[in-house]
């Protein structure tokens, strides 16, 4: 009984710590809010079943990401998701951005969705989960130098896209 309670407590801690980031990651990986929710729930269902195999609590985040990526790979086989209108699910901006900033955010979001998976995935692991290049390398099974190249190209593509789509002003200075 105590074992069950302990397992439930561990599981709930994982859910509280990682469900938001996993959802955010899933959303930007698959581009569909319903599928993202489905993926995260499926991830935690599998995590619950295999929780006893997670010996190192420090590895929980990577473990959950691995489960989610596998589940997404399976789902991708079953159906190609329809893209969600990202504006439906983005967090409301507290800082009341001006029109230029709003346009820039919209272009960034559009650009992220248009990145090829090989660029988008490492970028999301870095920005959403704060993974280091070494952690991304381990997660994706590619070399650290390949990770750095993909991250560099991902950002270059995003910047090029924004530039191409005509954002002016201080954003230009970034490039």
């Amino acid at each position: 009984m105590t074992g069950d309670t302990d397992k439930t407590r561990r599981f709930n801690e994982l859910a509280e710590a990682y469900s938001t980031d996993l959802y955010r990651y899933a959303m930007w990986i698959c581009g569909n809010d319903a599928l993202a929710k489905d993926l995260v729930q499926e991830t935690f269902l599998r995590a619950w079943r295999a929780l006893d195999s997670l010996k190192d609590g420090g590895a929980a985040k990577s473990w959950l990401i691995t489960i989610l990526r596998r589940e997404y790979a399976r789902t991708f086989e079953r159906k190609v998701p329809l893209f969600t209108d990202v504006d439906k699910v983005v967090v409301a901006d507290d800082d009341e951005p001006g029109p230029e900033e709003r346009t820039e955010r919209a272009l960034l979001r559009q650009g992220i969705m248009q990145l090829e998976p090989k660029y988008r995935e490492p970028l999301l692991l870095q920005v959403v989960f704060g993974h280091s290049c070494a952690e991304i390398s381990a997660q994706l099974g590619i070399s650290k130098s390949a990770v750095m190249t993909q991250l560099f190209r991902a950002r270059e593509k995003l910047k090029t896209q924004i530039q191409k789509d005509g954002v002016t002003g201080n954003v230009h200075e970034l490039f």
Partner: protein
Amino acid sequence: MSMNFSEFKKLLAADPWNRDSETLRARNSAPEFEQAAEEAEAFEHKLQTALQVSPPVDLLADIKAISQHPVQRRNWMPLALAASLLIAVGAVGMVWKQSQQWDSVEAYLAEHYAHDGDTLLGRAAGSVSEADISRIMASLNASAGQQLKGQIKFIKFCPTPEGRGAHMVVSTEQGPMTIVFMPATQVTDGEMVEFNQMHAYLVNLEHGSAAIIGRRSQPVENLEALVRNSLRTGMVGA
């Protein structure tokens, strides 16, 4: 050896929050370095803001409920749709399998890849157990070496011009590529064939052959050594 400005900007674009001593030294070395670092950080803040999405309000509660009722939680509608799709795909697959007549390996590869090649590349993000790889390869009288096993992200049986073979998706630094193992088919060793937007490098093995398939921008021939060294054929009882 200190970092030049171009290297520094490249590093910023790959790892903008890097704070190792060499990066910090470079950052403090000249005003343009400092400015580039500040601009990179500003871009990161914009990126983080753009990526903010709010999870559904009931997500956490739904997840916590799993520990109370850990059953398969998918609703029936997607399953019903998936089942319909499976039947349709199965029917198409049967028609496809019944019409297998290829004049050449090139024609086979073009038709086979058009069937599900691109879709299966989506499996490059997943993983497959070494046991599954060994099982499939052994049933084809072959085996995969450790290096190849490490790169295989998906494997399944597939039709080939002469009997059953294996369709594999492998991860490479140039993105996922496909290897089709044809246990009973001989090819022109080292020939490059092209179809649609793809090209394939053909490798004759001790028994049978393999086609390494990728987009035309991908150096498929780079996997030749991997295939030759790691795809061992004619291993009875492997």
